[in-house]
């Protein structure tokens, strides 16, 4: 970053997202009766893309990178822009852009779609803020800023019982989790006397008798993170919210919101509670993440294997992937040189996941738009009617399962290799077994689409619409999933550089 730009401009990705949200509100206020679905979608997509461009430019220019003067801190150290924050902001902005584009077709007959776009943009702003948070207070505020629009988004189909019910459940679990998280923060504050990460870290080593208090606080913060990432046992909201919510919202929550949970976890647990100091204070949070990772990936994948509906299967698979990404925290060991590799691999996995999972949910959105059913059987023979979209879906499925030659293979491979080299063979082994299980249910989708015959010849006659924007979003996500394979080198390097700055 050149020295002439003021420091606050480092926040421009988040600011752009927020301003776009405000602009949408403004337009909607001035002309509330206008059916403005298209212009809303275009404005929000442009806002998200502008934010993405600025972020990518920052990454290339090296903003917040150690080579250009290190991380940029603002607001008395409560906000910190570095490579990791930019990396995750790129994920949020990409997913947001895909989702708003897809939503244009999904909400084609909705009465008042305008609120959807502004809520999504505000949630994205909260995520971008989470990525730069360097104080527990900012973390909490930003987390709520993500959560509150999310509750509304899940319940966005007001006349749909499933949507409303899911929104309410999500809200209740979310309120409980927020309380736990906030209680954890207060306990940590009680023990260390600070909310700024760096200062908390300085106190952790000299806790003495207060280590139990801080420990309970930290476990509660783990709980808050687990809620946002949909990890066991805070995952209960996820299958129902993902299933009940409009599919673009499911895509948004399961990709971007999950990544937001991880960015907090990565930063808090490396900068506020550094591993060496925590272990010295008898707070073995790596163990907690190890247990969470193992249980989460196993439960997610096993439950996904027995689902009948594609969307619910994807919901559980999303829980399983949270388990994989948790390896990035669970396979750390104090002072090991391999920490950067494993956490960097987890970040790269989240980026790849952002595209393939969003794409998969958007395909489901397309199926809902077509009005075919929700089960695997309803997808039978779909490839004959919609070959391009089904090919894209097959790419997502195989990439999610981690098969070469798709990007999901590499990110998972680096993740498991990093875990093995850091001495966590059991986690990698469990991850591999879970991947085998996941191949079963992912390939069920592909088999249904390409190999099975439709139940009745007229079953697929409903497909008479060509939702252009949805198609574009799905195809773009598929292309990104494929292109991330040759482009994986820069991605993993950026991710490892981001992780290296944390340790």
């Amino acid at each position: 970053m050149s020295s002439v730009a003021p420091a606050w401009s480092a926040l421009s990705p988040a600011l752009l997202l927020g301003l776009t949200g405000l602009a949408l509100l403004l337009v909607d206020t001035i002309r509330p009766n206008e059916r403005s679905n298209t212009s809303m979608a275009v404005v929000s997509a442009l806002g998200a893309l502008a934010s993405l461009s600025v972020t990518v430019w920052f990454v290339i220019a090296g903003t917040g990178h150690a080579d250009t003067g290190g991380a940029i801190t603002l607001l008395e150290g409560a906000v910190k822009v570095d490579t990791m924050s930019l990396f995750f902001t790129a994920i949020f902005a990409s997913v947001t852009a895909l989702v708003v584009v897809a939503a244009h077709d999904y909400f084609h007959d909705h009465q008042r779609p305008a609120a959807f776009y502004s809520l999504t943009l505000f949630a994205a702003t909260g995520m971008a803020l989470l990525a730069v948070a360097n104080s527990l207070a900012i973390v909490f505020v930003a987390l709520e800023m993500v959560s509150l629009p999310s509750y509304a988004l899940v319940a966005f189909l007001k006349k749909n019982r499933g949507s409303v019910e899911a929104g309410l459940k999500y809200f209740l679990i979310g309120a409980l989790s927020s309380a736990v998280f906030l209680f954890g923060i207060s306990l940590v504050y009680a023990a260390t006397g600070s909310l700024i990460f760096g200062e908390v870290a300085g106190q952790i080593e000299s806790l003495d008798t207060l280590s139990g208090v801080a420990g309970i606080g930290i476990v509660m913060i783990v709980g808050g993170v687990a809620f946002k990432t949909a990890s066991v046992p805070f995952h209960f909201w996820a299958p129902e919210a993902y299933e009940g919510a409009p599919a673009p919202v499911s895509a948004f929550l399961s990709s971007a919101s999950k990544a937001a949970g991880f960015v907090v976890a990565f930063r808090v647990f490396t900068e506020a509670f550094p591993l060496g100091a925590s272990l010295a204070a008898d707070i073995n949070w790596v163990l907690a993440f190890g247990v969470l990772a193992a249980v989460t990936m196993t439960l997610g994948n096993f439950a996904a294997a027995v689902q009948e509906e594609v969307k619910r299967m994807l919901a559980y698979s999303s829980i399983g992937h949270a388990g994989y990404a948790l390896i990035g925290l669970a396979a750390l060991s104090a002072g090991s040189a391999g920490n950067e590799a494993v956490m960097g691999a987890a970040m790269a996995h989240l980026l790849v996941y952002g595209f393939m999972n969003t794409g998969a949910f958007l395909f489901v959105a397309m199926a809902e738009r077509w009005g075919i059913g929700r089960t695997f059987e309803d997808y039978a023979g779909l490839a004959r009617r919609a070959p391009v979209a089904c090919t894209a879906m097959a790419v997502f499925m195989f990439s999610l399962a981690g098969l070469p030659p798709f990007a999901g293979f590499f990110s998972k491979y680096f993740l498991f290799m990093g875990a093995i080299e850091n001495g966590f063979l059991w986690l990698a082994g469990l991850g591999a077994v879970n991947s085998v299980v996941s191949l079963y249910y992912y390939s069920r989708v592909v088999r249904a689409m390409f190999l099975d015959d439709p139940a009745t010849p007229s079953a697929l006659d409903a497909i008479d619409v060509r939702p252009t924007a949805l198609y574009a979003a799905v195809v773009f996500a598929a292309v990104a999933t494929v292109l991330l394979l040759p482009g994986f080198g820069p991605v993993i390097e950026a991710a490892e550089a981001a992780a290296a700055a944390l340790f």
Partner: protein
Amino acid sequence: MVDAFAYVPAVVLLPFFSFLVALGAGKYLPKGGAFGGIAATAGSFLLSLWIATAVAGGRAYNETLYTWAAGDQFELTFGALIDPLSALMLVIVTLVALLVHVFSLGYMNDEGETGLPRYYAGLGLFTASMLGFVVADNLLMAFMFFELVGLCSYLLIGFHFREPGPPSAAKKAFLVTRFGDYFFLVGVVAVFATFGTAAFAGEGSFPALAEAALAGSGDVWTPGGLELQTWLTVVGLLVLGGVVGKSAQFPLHTWLPDAMEGPTPVSALIHAATMVAAGVYLVARMYGFYALTPTTLAVIAFIGGFTALFAATMGVVKDELKQVLAYSTISQYGYMMLALGAGGYVAAVFHLTTHAFFKALLFLGAGSVIIAMHHNEDMWDMGGLKSRMPVTYYTFLAGSLALAGIFPFAGFWSKDEILYEALVHGLNEPLLLGGYVMGLLAVPVTAFYTFRMVFLTFHGEPRTDLAADPEPVRWNVKGPLTVLGSLAVVTGFINMVPVQKVLGLEGIDYLHRWLDNEWGGIEGLSSHHYADLGPYSSGYIAGGEVPTVLVGAAVSLGLALAGLGLAWRLYNVTSPTEHTAKLGGIKDVLYNNYYLDELQVWIAYRTEDIAGGADTFDQGIIDGVVNGVSSVSLLGGSRVRRIQTGLVTQYAAMLTLGLIALLVLLGVNGGWFL
């Protein structure tokens, strides 16, 4: 000036593009994409000529073009190596491929075959693979293109996949050569493990490293403290496995006669310039390595000599035109192996060159006859075609004279040089001498079956109505035949070593000088260097070099003429009859190819027990684990499903309990509650 070597990748890529075009758009193109293939191979041919000119201008090329995997120990790369050997081979392959493409217009298009895009796509890929193999600068790249060649042969031999024979023959060719390639693959890995590189040429190439290590000035890895010489021999024999499979040497030759099920132009391509030539070319390519291990050389020579004789005897009794040619191919490649094993590097390349032309000629000639005979290949139904298809006859005759080794046709010079090399080097080496004797015995047999074929096909009276009124062939058949016919006559003159030695005319052994880097080449890849490395010393009979040359040539020519004469007496009559009955019991043995197919099948069945064990392991243990995981996961999944009750109060309770469990776990672990 534009550098010719910059176009080396284009030589390979042009036929590859014709493959893509024929595959993707063949059905929209006239002639099923044939013109694209012709244009591409013609372009490759011209580029190859240009490259050969550049080599003749004193230059060579050895570059890594693409590194596709890099590790700490070694790198895996694609590259191009252009030296006199590969430049010569490029010209041969592209020329034969071009002529085969043109001939296919007559053999496939004019005959109204279907599936032509598939055919021309196969030809394009086949040519591209072989060219990639020829320019390969390292063993791994060579192996990959070697496998591609194998795949293409499978696709083309099985071209008529709706008939019962071709798919089965294609499978056989694929499996038998694959059997040899397993050894080759292990050999490639062994080369990497031993030397850390698989490059053919240059300072750090594996032949150079092996040479240095044997001289005691280098250090290479050997497994279990095995003696270096022994280990190098093992590696050499492993790679030889692939060669024996592809070049159809005993005992892996059985696929080749069956491969005649493929369209005849494909047979020409396989036998003259691509697949079968690949094996011999590989040995020549890494000759600097083989020359270091006398045991391997002796094995090569003996296999070669034995195959030459063995295959020739089977050719004697065949009734079908292409079958005779098939066995002659096996036999002729045996000669090349004999030459390589006998230290006759140049002789082998020489024979590879002449054979490429006259065998392509014979196959295309046979194709012409087959067109004329409406795809009846039985020679007993022919006869008297001489006057009805003169172009085919005279070119076929030139090819036959070359194959039989009659002076002054191409085959005479190259075969004579092989036998000469084997003789002078073999006087002190019993194994080599054995190879020589077998090679010499094969000469009259070759001449006999060749002219039996010529007389039965073209001479005498027509024995069927079909032969009396054959279908005429067009320019696209006659053109390639004429080109190859001329080459079969004159190619021998590029290397008239006997003439040079007897008459003392210096400098007419052009091929020797070419391969000895006289014009240009790469250090360490010259025939001179190979001769220095090789274990052989020369001995002479009849008191000196010149008499040895004369005696050797006279003996082989005499034997060839004897074979020809016998065929003349038995078959050059108005209505020839079968004489096989006179062979007695041997006849059945020969008809059944020494029962080797049966032997291989028997061996295959015996391996069923081992395969059965592996199958049990696979079914029971591997699949058992997989099935176990899946049933456990489905069972576990349905349990998990039940947790998700839909009641948010229960969720809150379980969430809280989970958090408390985590708190207790970490608290006890960290001693917070004490």
